[in-house]
């Protein structure tokens, strides 16, 4: 019988056969030549995916219409004032008129560049949000084409992040392989997000440490508030730069809004995150020194904000990699008091 077919031939094993054992049997293996090891159901196991952040959008967006209309009016008023001013200047003297006109043109050009930049920043934020949602969907429906598309979009998004050059090369080599959609997304997360996640964790714990230390030594509560707010802004901006969002001023505002919303929505989650223990710990620190306790609490809130910001700006949901928790961030912070702050 000549066998030309290069693949493995079919086989059958009756489970009631004397040579067959069902289940793992390390020492009995010699006695039973064939082991049948049942596998857990792969097809019916439910994949754990976080609920994507979605605000239901109902019909016409009146808020957007309002702000658009008000902005338009302000622009019109400014334009009208400008035209009047230049007319007045021309009425006074020709030279002043031309100078004013030139300045006005320069201002208009600069303004339009700013507008374009802001729009691009906002568009990039929208891309990240959409990418996150698509990745979550792919994890559920395991669509191979969509998984590939998500990975390609992610590669395009991180094109300007030099530290990912090697990970990108590895990921690109996997693009042609036969990998199911969900696995592809997980692979992309492991390859592309690991270095960024580590960096993000360092950034958040550094910010939290700084806030704690500053609050502990600052002379006035008002300065504390300013400092905490300022470092929150800086933190969110740095995280979004890290994950490839590069937002402008408007983008940063939108981002802050999303982060605060996210904090509000997931506030309950913090209890399971070890909040009680943390609070208790700070209570004890507060007994020792009121300033130190206050400092730790501020640092803790900053870390919480940082975590929310990571959730918002990260292009992929956490599935293959562990989500950084408040507990390990705060232990970083506490350790950070004794050590030199790492330069991110």
């Amino acid at each position: 019988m000549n066998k030309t077919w290069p693949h493995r031939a079919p086989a059958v094993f009756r489970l009631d056969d004397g040579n067959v054992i069902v289940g793992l049997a390390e020492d009995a293996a010699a006695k039973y030549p064939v082991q049948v090891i049942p596998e857990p159901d792969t097809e019916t196991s439910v994949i754990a995916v976080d609920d994507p952040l979605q605000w239901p959008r109902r019909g016409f967006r009146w808020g957007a219409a309002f702000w658009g209309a008000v902005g338009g009016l302000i622009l019109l008023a400014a334009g009208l004032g400008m035209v009047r001013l230049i007319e007045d200047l021309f009425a006074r003297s020709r030279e002043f008129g031309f100078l004013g006109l030139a300045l006005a043109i320069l201002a208009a050009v600069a303004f339009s560049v700013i507008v374009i930049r802001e729009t691009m920043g906002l568009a990039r934020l929208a891309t990240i949000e959409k990418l996150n949602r698509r990745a979550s969907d792919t994890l559920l429906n395991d669509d191979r084409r969509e998984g590939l598309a998500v990975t390609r979009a992610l590669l395009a998004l991180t094109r300007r992040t030099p530290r990912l050059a090697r990970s990108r090369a590895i990921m690109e080599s996997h693009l042609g392989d036969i990998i199911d959609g969900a696995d592809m997304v997980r692979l992309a997360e492991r390859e592309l997000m690991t270095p960024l996640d580590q960096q993000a964790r360092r950034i958040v714990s550094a910010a939290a440490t700084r806030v704690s230390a500053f609050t502990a030594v600052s002379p006035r509560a008002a300065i504390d508030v300013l400092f905490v707010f300022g470092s929150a802004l800086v933190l969110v901006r740095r995280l979004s730069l890290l994950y490839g969002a590069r937002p402008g001023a408007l983008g940063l505002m939108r981002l802050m809004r999303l982060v605060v919303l996210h904090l509000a929505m997931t506030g309950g989650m913090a209890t399971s995150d070890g909040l009680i223990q943390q609070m208790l710990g700070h209570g004890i620190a507060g007994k020792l020194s009121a300033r130190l306790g206050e400092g730790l609490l501020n640092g803790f809130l900053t870390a919480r904000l940082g975590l929310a910001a990571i959730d918002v700006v990260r292009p992929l949901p956490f599935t293959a990699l562990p989500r950084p928790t408040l507990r390990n961030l705060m232990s970083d912070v506490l350790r950070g008091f004794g050590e030199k702050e790492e330069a991110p």
Partner: protein
Amino acid sequence: MGELIERIRLAAAALADFSSHLFDPTIRLGVTGLANAGKTVFITALVHGLLRGGRFPVFEAMATGRVARAYLAPQPDYAVPRFDYESHLDALVDKRLWPASTRQISELRLVIEYQSQRGHQRALTLDIVDYPGEWLLDLPLLDKSYEAWAAESVSLSRLGPRAGLARDWNSYLATLDPKGAEDEQAALTAAKLFTAYLKACRDKNYAMSLLPPGRFLMPGDLGNTPALTFAPLDVAGDGIAPKGSLWALMRRRYDAYRDIVVRPFFRDHFARLDRQIVLVDTLAAINAGPDAVLDLERALAQVLDCFQIGRKTILSTMLRPRIDRILLAATKADHLHHTSHDRLEAVLKRLTQEATAKAELAGAQVDVVALAAVRATREATVRRARQELPCILGVPVAGEVLAGETFDGETEAALFPGDLPDDPNELFRSDASAFQGISTTSPQNADFRFLRVRPPLLEATESGISALPHIRLDRALQFLIGDRLQ
């Protein structure tokens, strides 16, 4: 002329549908599949899943809880029997038997009440038709003259393993003179031998697919009527039948068959589909051998060519409905370990590549999925002498034979059906390097053995049967009707 009248009738029916569907959104789901592809099981599992709320994580509307309830409604056609969902389910769950081949057309209407994503209360009606898969092969006859069909059938019957099966009919055919006088007895004998040849081809050892006309295999209520008493003659594809000849008799009956049987079947059930799922039993063909695989490819190409496929527009919806989404499903995916499902999908893609390309060009969405509407197996790894085989665990149906073992329908076994190749083209070779199926070699030496497995043992809870296990049925539903439940 007849063609034009037919078109007008179709357009009128479509227009009537359009106006009634304005207020009552309806999807006509075409469950298409050749004989033994698993249409009845698919419909039963789908209806059960929707009625009882199956485990469908990927079917978004159901997974997020937006589907309030689904119920069976009276069907719209008074002349068509109702799909006997209850007894199919009983047989599947209690007796653990797969349904017998469908002999009659039947229909079911399902209403899904859901809340749209914006919060409106809506209802979607789903019309599903079940029919013998053999009849599907009649659809390509609509565009074929008797002469073209006869020439094709005769040349096909001399190819590969068919030649042996058709020997009796072919030798009788040689004695017939198409231009001789009409002879009822000759027609009867020819039809009988031709039917016997078609039935032999359908045997699971050969698993041929392209076997028109379908009513010869599954006559329904037309057995022994003159409309089924004809057979191909050895005539030229472009010849003209002399008056009063045997040829003219056969030709008349072929035309009658098309008018009485095929056209109404097409008009009533296929001309107005919105969505289509094409179930293909790829594994049975692979089991039988390369000839069966090539035959399946030919049959699918001919059948898929009959449907109106393309992007929907308002005009097309009103006058000539089109199918805007097609799901190609390789059924019985539970007979393979899940690591091979991708390769099974690749094989199906290769089987249907022309039809797929055409559909995509016309603007329809096409997806390919390896599916098991009812999952009858579990998975296991078998370790034997340092070798690991990805196997499935199941109870083979009584009478199945593999490697000298005959199963009694009670014994559980771990089955390794053979590795599907990475490159699906390897399965389509017919030269010396082709694989061996049971049509050409003994079951011991075949390169693939897919045994039929009994339906799973399910635990009944007090509220009835729990959800049926499945593979990717939810993904199929999401693709087919998910967008209409937004």
